[in-house]
């Protein structure tokens, strides 16, 4: 089965925290003020953060999970 999770392009991230503010699961957080990181265990793939990111650098990627 495949589910989606958010992936951040760290090299372009401004660590503004807009993504963190909208995540309903607290799955995305700002790592030491440098970039946004996703907790793949918590992310439900709702893509709210991807829509919010002012730089549009969050993509939704398929995550292969073993059944």
């Amino acid at each position, binding site marked *: 089965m495949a589910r989606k999770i958010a992936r951040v392009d760290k090299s372009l991230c*401004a660590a503004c925290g807009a993504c963190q503010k909208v995540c309903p699961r607290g799955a995305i957080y*700002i790592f030491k*003020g440098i970039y946004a990181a996703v907790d793949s265990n918590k992310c439900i793939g709702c893509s709210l953060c991807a829509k919010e990111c002012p730089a549009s650098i969050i993509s939704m990627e398929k995550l292969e999970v073993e059944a």
Partner: protein
Amino acid sequence: MKKAAKKNWYDYLYIASAIYLFLGLFNILFAWLGMLCFTIPLIISFKTGTKTYCNKYCGRGQLFNLLGKKLKLSRNKSMPNWMKSKVFRYGFLLFFLTMFSLMIFNTVLVFNGTRSLSQVVTLLWTFKIPWQWAYHITSAPLWVSQYAFGFYSIMLTSIVLGIITMAMYKPRSWCIYCPMGTMTQLVCVAKESANKTK
């Protein structure tokens, strides 16, 4: 869709940001309060190695969100690639710091009497707007007022730029190239690499 969780006191700091801009219309000396938006983020980053100011407290980011999302003034498009590039972000920071230094220099000229107080607010580093209504003869030294005019110019310019990119792209687009945001991020990067080499 789920609604955001309960609001905290700091989710209302956009009110402070808006009031700040209004105060500058009446008395330019209020512009000095803007120093808080310069010092607090840097202190937080130096002390804690985080961008907590941007992530939680900044009223300006909230203001853009309010305009763009609640009032639906944003087209919600992706910004062009150059705008999020490091070259542009660091370049804009350098430009900003240069203009800031010039502003300090102007203040010094007024301080030592080489230049007289100019009661204008300069928008986008180009357009000089007469602003004498916000200047009242006070016992404050002239340079204090000169600095206030210069500082308010910076704050107003960044709001105007921020509103333009809020409308054209996503609401908080300004936060990608905001010089304060870039600076605090650089402080965090420096702190982290210092930690690693320790």
